[in-house]
């Protein structure tokens, strides 16, 4: 049976196909506590992104505003979003992202990280 199914499975997956973009990892890491405020948040996805329809925002969980710039797709890595940050004080921050992969599938997510001891 595997002799029949495996070639069928492989044939069904075109090499050039794209798919939903899942978050692969982030810097700072998801849920991490970092000692020093990071200058930026980097989000690395499993698929290349459409820059015009992908983005990220950041907010302090206690409601303090964070004047971050607009997130951009890294020119050297279209599967990465970069969000430049102003100097962050100690506290917990929530990053919310939305991603549209190059085949137009949309995904979204969020996570927190903490600056401080």
């Amino acid at each position, binding site marked *: 049976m595997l002799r029949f199914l495996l070639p069928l499975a492989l044939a069904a997956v*075109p090499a050039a*196909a794209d798919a939903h973009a899942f978050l692969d990892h982030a810097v700072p890491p998801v849920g991490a506590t970092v000692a020093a405020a990071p200058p930026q948040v980097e989000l690395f996805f499993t698929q290349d992104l459409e820059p015009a329809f992908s983005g990220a925002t950041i907010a302090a969980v206690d409601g303090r505003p964070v004047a971050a710039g607009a997130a951009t797709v890294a020119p050297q890595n279209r599967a990465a979003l970069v969000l430049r940050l102003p100097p962050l004080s100690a506290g917990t921050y929530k990053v919310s992202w939305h991603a549209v992969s190059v085949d137009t599938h949309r995904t979204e997510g969020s996570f927190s990280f903490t600056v401080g001891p």
Partner: protein
Amino acid sequence: MTLPRATALGAACAVLAAPFLSTTAAAHGFAGERFFPATLLTDDPFVADELSLPTLTFDPTAADGSKTIDLDIDLSKRLTPDIGITLSQGWQHLKVPGMPGVTGLTGFSAELDWQFLRDAPHEASAVLGLHTSWAHTGRVQALGADDFTTLSPLVNFGKGFGDLPTTMPWLRPIAVTGNLSVDFPTKTESAGSPNPNNLNYGFAFEYSLEYLQHHVKDVGLSAPFDRMIPLVEMAFTTGLNRGAGGQTTGTIQPGVIWSGQYFQLGAEAIIPVNAASGHGLGAMLQLHFYLDDIFPNSIGKPLFGD
């Protein structure tokens, strides 16, 4: 319950659900940040363009001592972003004690679903549908196919717990899906045996390591573990009348699903819940393709309204 009453119940549910009608389209099993995999036993709370090829089931030994192996194919196709159909066909090997084994196609079934709820903030999703198992389909001579059609109005739902407070981080990867349906056979008896109405209900309790790793806390999981969803599924059928009232059969199925970019793999053990459900252990294996990811510009999108 009669069929007209069932129809009225479905209409009432639709009216009650109207305020929650989804207005955006999304393929796959997403509700906000939550990804619901296609579970092996519990019907999915979303419409999708997906293909199970195959689902291989080694059933526990039945109460009468017979053993079966099933190989099923299920094709789900969205007609619109919120309405989809599923066509199912199976092949079965049946061995009854003292008899030679027989094989053949099982009955054909079809299902029409309407996804009336897709609530992103609360990671909730639900469908109303009608499942139909058609009479006189399959290899009738070998397997004794039903001479009646069974209509089963259904509701499937899913809820992720990512909206729990951040003070409970380890519970946020949990999700529950479930289904509820009632069987209405078109003949009350066949060859002297009654065909009861049945109540079908089931649940899947999932713990998404993908959600944990990428939405809650990076705990250092790498492939393939960061795309795994351990789960326990359970499904029950309770007879409602015609001599079967109160009789319940069912299975509990612990297992794991790995979800990739284009397909997922699932494996579960099958544990009968009582003697009437069989004895011993069984197993279920599934290879499941995401057609919307594999063919995003052709058969992987809705026929209308995308």
